[in-house]
């Protein structure tokens, strides 16, 4: 029972004219919560009414408080006929239920009508008085905090990460109920909005309950989605990561910078790392104890405590090995496997065991987070994904959504088993999505298989230090995550393994694909860039089962091609890793669209990517001249790209980076599967056979086209960079310019018979043109970076392709880097971790090179994980259950490129070993090289415009904005706002709007309609955030933008769902400069021209 909700209606303004005769309005307001309604007096003849009502009080269960929104309806009083509704405001009062979030909601809200859009504004004050409910069996979960942010929120530290939470609720879609035939579109839209609001409230509450059960107090990386299944209903589902978060007092926050030298602490800890004996028992103990809250993971404190290290392998290995072992032959390690294996065994077994336990408990070791505290992530295996094609049927019993649950369960199991096959016990950067067309639904899930620091799996060991370091065995933080997690003896697929180019001690793959953000401690060379693979596949129209089969038959081919494209484009940019990989496959009536986006980066720990070699199938096919011209173009492009992205890795010359012959490293770890209703599994090898060189073969015109399309991707114009991750590899010195935007483009295909090739071209052009448009529109922000570019594709109707993009453009300062880099280690504690860790290597080399040496020395004494002797077979494995594709049936090109030679591989292998030995001998030289790299990075950052200083300073002035009548609310899809520090999270924003029109032409056609709708949605989000007392939305995303039109009837309808975290942030410079306000003014003088 315990909750009293109070609402007060203060005033209205800019109301629409409801009475034509007087050009005025007689407005009053209905305030409704649950089944209780209050009304204000009528304020006659005014467009700016002052109601100044009493406090309307609702006494309600906290369960209702969580589920229901406060509904405010503004009406025009009419003496003779029914009162006309002007519009509504739904206020989600959830933020008032956490003790730390907002305490009052007060402000101007746009009055929204689903037919007319925003019609004036209303000023409302809402408060909640909550009584504690100690009932153990309560149904509410008030107090559990939700964050959309996919990392540990800035002003918190995670004391425990409990793990995956998921829930889904289903209902009938009001749009498809019989009553819809007789009610107005407005009534139907409102019913839908209200229902979805209720359902998300309920969903959040249920997830909250699960979190409480696990002992957590927050959900991070909360991802809620709607499936509009049409006739079969409406599904609202959510996933997230349960955590126990501690709020940091603002004073302690600055300590974050201790993370900057994650390697220093470990160095000392590891020195006296104790015997292995102690550790195993502890571990064993742990597992059973975890039965209650399954798989609890200890997260590390984000700040005040000493940083955890990035450590790893079972500590037992520490004693067993020596450099020589390792440097001579990887196989020796193997040979000695008897002992080494045994030693390594227990932990591994334990890990497995744990997974096993979790499995039995039907719990998933999944994390929706994409970035982690340093040291949390030990190793990354690769991308795991699963797709399943389902036929929708009516949900008979909404209270028991078993089928939907079972479907997801199935997919998650599959993901888990893939992860296990990669030797990983966890999946990070996990997400789920659907694509629905008529009654066919593709369910997709993907994530990155990873091994997490075992330390975090233990309970009650937060007081770092004494117990913990036993497990730790330092490995350089900036490459540790690249080291392969799987057993070399049992590689799930054939990979080109080499010794880590960083530490030289452990194996790394040649290419790494992940769905997470670039770990802050990772060492990269140059800048990152957005890489997209786009694909269209026609399919015959079909119904039911046949349709589902057709789709599932097409899926593997699409995945294969997307993967190939990604690989090619990655190589073309001379990069070797993808982060933030997101593959979306969208289904339409007569086609499937595939779009893979990721941020390419050059990880210095991984080998340099080889080039791409072009070959003709038979000499007669195409003139060798032609081939060589293409080859030249490709080589040129690679060279240009290297320059563009400033990829100059600190390489060892002997390694033959620039060798004309492409290096045999084209594999990636992409491990996925499709499942259909049947459970039969068959494996499909999608690797490019066993060939070593990455060769593109031109055997027909299609292939030529493909190559051309490869080269089509225009690099961004000078001054622009782009990525789809949280942080841009290679850029950290953001300035205050932030422009979040949403763009939607719909293309109508002509009726002409289109081929797959033609479609591909159209689709590629569509995406490329969108990017070009962004660059053009945002040109005044140069130098800037488009971050978190999130593309969503859909096929709303036959012959329509819709692409929706949300991203943020952020300005950065080329010049300041140098200065900052130098300063960082010393002060600037308040800087965000992301920023701090951009150049960990350089920093260390500069200020603490001695530490590095110590660290690396220690690690040298530890043996490397013994390399596998087994050369494996399949690199890219696709597990499908459809039973359609045998391994022979892959696309023709796949077969054609298969002419790698074993000999080649062997020679490379030997060469590598030689090199390895060589480099280790010259170990001391390493440091100096690093220093060089530092020098280089600095000089590259030196050239820049002097204008930037002024700009960044002027940010300060923004704080003085308070006096304006409208609070400025910044929005960003990222978890941080450049130049500011988040001091408070006010709660989650999760809003759903429907807009419909029956006068499409009058509203400026489809574009005019959607343009104003999106602008209105932004305005409403801003208003709600401002009412909570916030000034920014972080982790903003537009999860749904469903647009339907019927131009013949002059009608259109659009649904938009947005979410994000409302926050209060303050300028970083504020604190330090609050005293020097006068100074601010002065510096601004120089800024006149800085306002570029």
């Amino acid at each position, binding site marked *: 029972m315990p909750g009293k909700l109070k609402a007060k209606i203060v005033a209205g303004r800019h109301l629409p004219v409801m009475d034509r005769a007087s050009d005025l309005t007689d407005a009053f307001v209905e305030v409704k919560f649950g089944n209780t309604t209050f009304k204000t007096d009528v304020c006659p003849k005014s467009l700016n009414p002052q109601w100044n009502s009493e406090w309307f009080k609702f006494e309600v269960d906290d369960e209702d408080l969580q589920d229901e929104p406060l509904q405010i309806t503004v009406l025009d009083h009419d003496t003779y006929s029914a009162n006309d509704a002007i519009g509504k405001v739904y206020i989600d009062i959830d933020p008032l239920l956490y003790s730390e979030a907002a305490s009052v909601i007060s402000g101007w809200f746009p009055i929204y009508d689903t037919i007319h859009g925003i019609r004036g504004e209303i000023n409302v004050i809402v408060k909640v008085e909550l009584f504690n409910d100690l009932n153990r069996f309560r149904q509410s979960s008030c107090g559990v905090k939700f964050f959309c942010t996919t990392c540990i929120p800035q002003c918190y530290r995670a004391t425990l990460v409990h793990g995956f939470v998921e829930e889904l609720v289903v209902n009938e879609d009001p749009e498809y109920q019989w009553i819809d035939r007789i009610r107005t579109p407005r009534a139907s839209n409102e019913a839908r909005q209200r229902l979805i609001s209720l359902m998300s409230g309920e969903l959040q509450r249920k997830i909250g309950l699960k979190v409480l059960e696990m002992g957590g107090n927050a959900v991070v990386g909360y991802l809620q989605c709607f499936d509009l299944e049409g006739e079969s209903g409406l599904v609202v589902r959510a996933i997230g990561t349960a955590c126990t978060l501690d709020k940091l007092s603002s004073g302690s926050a600055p300590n974050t910078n201790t993370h900057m030298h994650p390697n220093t602490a470990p160095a000392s800890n590891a020195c006296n790392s104790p015997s292995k004996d102690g550790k195993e028992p502890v571990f064993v103990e742990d597992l059973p104890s975890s039965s209650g809250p399954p798989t609890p993971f200890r997260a590390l404190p984000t700040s005040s405590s000493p940083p955890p290290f990035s450590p790893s392998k079972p500590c037992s290995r520490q004693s067993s090995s020596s450099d020589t072992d390792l440097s001579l032959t990887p196989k020796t390690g193997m040979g000695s496997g008897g002992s080494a294996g045994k030693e390594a065994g227990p932990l591994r077994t334990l890990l497995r065991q744990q997974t096993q336990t979790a499995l039995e408990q039907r719990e998933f070791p999944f994390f929706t987070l994409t970035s982690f505290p340093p040291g949390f992530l030990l190793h990354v295996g690769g991308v795991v994904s699963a797709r399943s094609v389902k036929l929708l049927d009516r949900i008979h019993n909404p209270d028991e959504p078993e089928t939907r649950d079972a479907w997801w369960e199935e997919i998650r199991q599959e993901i888990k088993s893939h992860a296990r096959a990669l030797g990983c016990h966890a999946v990070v950067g996990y997400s789920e999505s659907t694509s629905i067309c008529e009654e066919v639904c593709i369910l997709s899930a993907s994530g990155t298989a990873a091994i997490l620091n075992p330390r975090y799996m233990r309970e009650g060991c937060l007081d770092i230090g004494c117990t913990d370091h036993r497990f730790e065995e330092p490995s350089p933080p900036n490459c540790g995550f690249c080291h392969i997690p799987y057993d070399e003896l049992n590689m799930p697929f054939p990979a080109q393994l080499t010794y880590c180019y960083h530490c030289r001690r452990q194996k790394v793959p040649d290419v790494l694909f992940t769905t997470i953000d670039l770990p802050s401690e990772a060492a990269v060379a140059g800048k990152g860039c957005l890489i997209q693979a786009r694909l269209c596949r026609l399919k015959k129209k079909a119904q039911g089962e046949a349709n589902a089969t057709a789709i599932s038959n097409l899926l593997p081919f699409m995945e294969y091609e997307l993967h190939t494209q990604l690989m090619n484009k990655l190589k073309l940019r001379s990069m070797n890793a993808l982060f933030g990989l997101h593959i979306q496959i969208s289904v339409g009536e007569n086609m499937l669209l595939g779009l893979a986006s990721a941020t390419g980066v050059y990880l210095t720990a991984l080998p340099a990517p080889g080039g791409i070699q072009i070959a003709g199938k038979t000499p007669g096919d195409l003139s060798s001249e032609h081939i060589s011209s293409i080859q030249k173009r490709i080589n040129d492009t690679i060279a240009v790209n290297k320059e563009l992205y400033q990829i100059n890795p600190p390489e060892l010359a002997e390694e033959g980076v620039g060798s004309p012959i492409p290096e045999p490293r084209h594999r990636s770890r992409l491990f996925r599967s499709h499942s259909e209703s049947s459970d039969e599994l068959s494996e499909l090898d999608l690797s490019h056979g066993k060939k070593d060189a990455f060769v593109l073969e031109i055997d027909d015109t299609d292939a030529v086209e493909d190559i051309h399309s490869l080269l089509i991707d225009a690099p961004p114009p000078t001054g622009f960079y782009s990525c789809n991750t949280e942080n841009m590899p290679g850029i950290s010195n953001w300035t205050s310019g932030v422009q979040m935007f949403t763009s939607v483009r719909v293309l109508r295909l002509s009726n002409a018979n289109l081929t797959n090739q033609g479609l591909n071209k159209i689709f590629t052009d569509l995406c490329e043109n969108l990017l070009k448009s962004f660059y053009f529109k945002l040109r005044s922000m140069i130098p800037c970076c488009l971050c978190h570019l999130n593309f969503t594709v859909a096929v709303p109707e036959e012959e329509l392709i819709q692409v929706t993009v949300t991203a943020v453009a952020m300005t950065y300062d080329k010049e300041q880097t140098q200065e900052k880099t130098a300063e960082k280690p010393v002060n600037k504690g308040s800087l965000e971790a992301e920023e701090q860790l951009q150049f960990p290597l350089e920093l260390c080399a500069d200020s603490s090179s001695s530490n590095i040496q110590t660290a690396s020395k220690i690690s040298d004494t530890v043996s490397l994980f013994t390399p596998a002797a087994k050369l494996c077979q399949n690199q890219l494995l696709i597990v499908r259950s459809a039973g359609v594709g045998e391994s022979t049936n892959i696309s023709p090109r796949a077969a054609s490129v298969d002419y790698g030679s074993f000999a080649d591989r062997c020679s490379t292998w030997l060469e590598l070993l030689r090199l390895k030995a060589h480099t280790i001998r010259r170990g001391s030289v390493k440091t100096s090289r690093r220093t060089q790299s530092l020098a280089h990075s600095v000089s590259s950052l030196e050239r820049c415009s002097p204008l930037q200083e002024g700009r960044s300073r002027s940010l300060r002035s923004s704080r003085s904005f308070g006096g304006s009548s409208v609070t400025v609310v910044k929005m960003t899809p990222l978890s941080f706002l450049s130049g500011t520090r988040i001091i408070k999270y006010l709660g989650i924003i999760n809003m759903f709007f429907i807009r419909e029109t029956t006068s499409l032409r009058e509203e400026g056609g489809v574009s005019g309609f959607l343009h104003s709708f999106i602008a209105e949605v932004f305005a409403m989000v801003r*208003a709600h955030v401002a009412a909570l007392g916030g000034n920014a939305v972080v982790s903003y995303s537009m999860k749904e933008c469903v647009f339907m039109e019927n131009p013949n009837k002059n009608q259109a309808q659009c649904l938009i769902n947005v979410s994000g975290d409302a926050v209060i942030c303050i300028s970083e410079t504020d604190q330090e400069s609050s005293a020097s306000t006068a100074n601010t003014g002065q510096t601004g003088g120089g800024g*006149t021209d800085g306002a570029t």
Partner: protein
Amino acid sequence: MSVELDVFVGNTTIMDEEVYQLWLDGHTVNDAVKVRMEGGVMDECEASKDVLLSDTMDQYRTFQMCERLLHSPAKLANQLLFQIPPHRQIMLIERCSRDALIQLTHLFQRSHNSLFLYLFVKPPPLCYVSSHGNLFFVSLSLFRYYAFDDTFVREVLGKKLSKGTKKDLDDISAKTNVTLKSCRRQFDNFKRVFKVVEELKGPLVENIRQHFLLSDKLARDYAAIVFFANNRFETGKRKLQYLSFQDFAFCAGQLISNWTVGAVDNMVEDMDVDLDKEFLQELKELKILITDKDLLDQHKSLVCTALRGKTKVFIEMENNFKNLSRGLINIAAKLTNTKDVRDFFIDLVEKFIEPCRSDRWTAADMKLYLTHYTNSAHILDTFKHQVVWDRYMGVVKSCIFKMYHD
């Protein structure tokens, strides 16, 4: 294959000044794209024509959405639809004088392709520089939206702001070379301002400034337009063609500040729009200056004594004195008739300016003559209407000065 829908919406409203001007000028999207291409904007970001087209359409849509707000600029102060962040310029603006502000504006236009639109303004408008850092600065856009072409306004000046006139806009458009769209916008602006100030008390110019957040100059121009429209002054006759809008605007200013009700009482409705009836009645009394033979002769001799030797056209002045004096005083006496009020300017030209011009008076001669003509009346001991005389002649004098050119 065609683009069915294409929108770009930023959390911060981006406006390109150049495109905005093109839109105001009534160019179609395609024309605007052409102009922009010629302007070389394409080179800036490796843009293609498609990109430019898409951008231009987005901008046009944004302007159309803004237009509704621009119609009642005072609402802009707290509207929520478009977000304007405190931007780097603000700080500069805060510390700038008004002139610097205008300079800044030019600078800004030259160096930036697009600017963040500052629609949020707190009245009073423009140039209020806050000492504690609050944001308010009238958008350049607002000026632009309410800016008009002098050639266009010259055509509609004094006409009734009615549907009838609106129908003639296409002729005016053809004649003035201003696009029809732009003509309509300007005409609608006049009408809108007229409608709003019609019902307000207080000084006209101030009301316009407050409600439409316009600069002082622009507000005065609008006041003139409203004033002319309300009194339906004839400005279209051939003989008046040589006068520019600015000439009339100046005269309107004189009339508003001296001859309206507001000149004596500043809290009356319509005070600045209608002429002071009582005053017009009193003007009849001036007739004595021409009906009383003695007074007329006395006046003439006083003026001639004062002028002798000071001008080359003295003979003409002496010969014409009675005619000219009759002309001016008859105009004054007839102003009680609405019809004659309308003809005020044409009368001034026909009865006074033309005769003088044919006698080749210079502007200096005119000034000299009118000054002595006005002052001499004060010396006439039988002439009792000094106050009315000053109020009348003050305005007529300055109007004639302004209007006496080729």
